């Protein structure tokens, strides 16, 4: 069970870990701000407020998508590492190896987009990467895909190290997930939620990354030998299997921060229970098999897969609503919660996740998807649970770590102002997307119809407010992390 002590000894960051954590998080914060500015550029272009040509718009769109997914993964991996290292023996070289491979992969992607003009969206749907109509070369597409491969290899390296550590400590991954207590037995109340969630992510996301590796290698072969033609539907299935799991894994890694930290601010224990274990076991299965909900408009897909996509989309809501969100609400209810930056961000994060999946689940209905798919409804719901869910989870940990330096939670006026701007801007930004989606405004358009411009302009203003809040967060946290003294006494068994 997570500690109720605000700043326990086993979370200290001695030199190597301090440097690694700062590398991850400062890189991530800078990238978040940069990627948000790219997103703002897109909204302002659609609003007809900036003279960006279509070719540049789609390059920015590709960079924004790949950059945001990658940065979310990078930062949420650091969240998982931060807590998991307390319970199992992780190797610092694996964590740093992931960072180095991420940076090499990111350089490949940035080069492919801004030098090689690659603009195939982050989903690189075959055969668009090798069918650019002369805008980029197959070699450029290969560099982009090589970048993804490098990032995937880094993540696998970290997951393999974490899996080995969990197996060494608990015997196997099933015991890490707590499956031995699903049907009976006395649950060990000290079994950490970080281990349960971490094990789930290792299982699901390793499969997703392997699917990604398979499809990337297939596409790379095709890029150099077009005679080896690919089945566009099979490729699409693999890409969405990969993409869905990578982005969903960020939520499941990020939520560890809420599980670990929120009880310290409420003062109420938040131990594991059988419903909790059932929900994580079910989520492991759901997240692996729900990906066909991205292919509901591919009528050539086998019918059973489309039905599964809809039904599992519904089922996936149960663990979120009834266990995690409900668990957080019962933990804060009548608790005497201390409202500090980390606790406010943790509550916001769970709200963003739970509220954001409402339009996502609804869009998982085939008959709804027929009129909402690839409209702005889609960025509406995923921005909701990424901007107001996952990112606040990451910020929860960061503000907590900054507070641990001076042994007092952060609660400054500027930080609260940043939170106000971030929440108001974020909610407005996402709701404008959703409203525009229900009005059938297309996503991924460089230029919009005149009647769509009011939504784009409202969305642009909301994005500016949101980014102002994020700039405040990033500045305050980066200064806090850089000023933090290095802890001298490693109290945990990290390698």
């Amino acid at each position, binding site marked *: 069970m997570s500690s109720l002590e605000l700043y326990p000894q086993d979370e200290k960051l001695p030199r190597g870990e301090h440097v690694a954590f700062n590398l991850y998080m400062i890189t991530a914060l800078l990238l978040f701000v940069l990627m948000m500015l790219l997103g703002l550029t897109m909204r302002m272009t659609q609003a007809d407020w900036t003279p960006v040509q279509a070719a540049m718009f789609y390059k920015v769109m590709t960079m924004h998508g790949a950059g945001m997914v990658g940065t979310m993964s990078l930062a949420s991996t650091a969240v998982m590492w931060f807590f998991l290292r307390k319970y199992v023996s992780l190797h610092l070289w694996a964590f740093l190896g992931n960072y180095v491979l991420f940076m090499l992969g990111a350089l490949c992607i940035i080069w492919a987009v801004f030098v090689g003009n690659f603009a195939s969206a982050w989903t690189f749907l075959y055969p668009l990467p090798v069918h650019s109509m002369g805008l980029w070369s197959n070699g450029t597409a290969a560099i982009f895909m090589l970048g993804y491969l490098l990032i995937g290899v880094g993540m696998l390296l970290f997951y393999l190290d974490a899996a080995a550590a969990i197996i060494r400590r608990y015997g196997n991954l099933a015991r890490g997930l707590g499956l031995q207590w699903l049907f009976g037995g006395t649950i060990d109340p000290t079994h950490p939620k970080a281990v349960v969630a971490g094990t789930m992510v290792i299982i699901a996301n390793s499969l997703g990354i392997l699917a990604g590796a398979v499809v990337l290698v297939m596409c790379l072969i095709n890029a150099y030998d077009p005679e080896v033609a690919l089945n566009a539907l099979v490729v699409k299935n693999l890409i969405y299997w990969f993409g869905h799991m990578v982005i969903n894994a960020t939520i499941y890694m990020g939520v560890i921060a809420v599980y670990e930290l929120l009880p310290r601010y409420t003062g109420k224990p938040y131990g594991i229970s059988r419903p909790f274990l059932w929900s994580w076991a079910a989520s492991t299965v759901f997240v692996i098999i729900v990906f066909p909900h991205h292919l509901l408009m591919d009528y*050539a897909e086998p019918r059973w897969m489309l039905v599964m996509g809809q039904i599992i989309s519904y089922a996936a809501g149960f663990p979120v609503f009834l266990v995690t969100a409900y668990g957080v609400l019962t933990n804060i209810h009548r608790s005497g919660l201390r409202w500090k930056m980390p606790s406010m961000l943790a509550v916001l994060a769970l709200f963003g996740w739970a509220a954001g999946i409402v339009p996502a689940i*609804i869009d998982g209905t085939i008959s709804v998807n027929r009129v909402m798919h690839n409209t702005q409804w889609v960025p509406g719901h995923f921005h909701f649970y990424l901007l107001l869910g996952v990112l606040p989870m990451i910020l929860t940990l960061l503000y907590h770590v900054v507070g641990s330096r001076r042994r007092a939670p952060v609660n400054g006026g500027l930080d609260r102002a940043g939170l106000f701007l971030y929440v108001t801007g974020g909610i407005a930004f996402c709701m404008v997307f*959703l409203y525009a989606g229900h009005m059938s405004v297309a996503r991924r358009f460089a230029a919009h119809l005149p009647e769509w411009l009011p939504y784009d302009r409202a969305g642009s203003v909301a994005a500016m407010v949101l980014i102002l809040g994020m700039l405040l967060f990033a500045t305050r946290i980066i200064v806090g992390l850089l000023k933090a003294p290095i802890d001298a006494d490693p109290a945990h068994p990290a390698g």
Partner: protein
Amino acid sequence: MVFQNVIWAITLTGMGLVALGFIYAIAQAGKPADTAEAERAHRTSISLRRALFAALLLLGIGIAWASLRPFPIPPQHQPLQAAQVVEVVGHQWTWDVSPTHLRADEPVEFRVTASDVNHGFAIYAPDGRIVIQTQAMPGFTNKILYTFRTPGTYRIMCLEYCGVAHNGMTAEFDVAAREDKS
């Protein structure tokens, strides 16, 4: 009633209920409970969670049943025997649509494919809202069965990103009132 407006109302209701749950818990968060109150609240929360589980389960099963029967996608491997058939091929960055004059109140079968990359075949009604869509994929033909009720000019837009001129990939077709049938 426009279908999307119904979805919008349902979504706002769902998100509003989630927000109410958070507002209630946040409003109570600053008032610490004593041991007896905490025990009572714990029992209530368990009962409430069971009730919510049952309610959501019934809702989910009901909606799944209602929305999947009949299955909203027509059979893809057998003749649809519609009175009107439209062949659609997506190319970077044009649509080949034939014929482009259709009649209202009679089923139309759209056979949608692509010659190069993935495209999204979406039909926008004269009021600017999507009425139906499918993917246009190289190597596959996706079939839509749809009956237009409102005469007018319908616009086709590509909703799957397909390259630099993606947003300009549009076409139009007309739907005439049934009495105009020649």
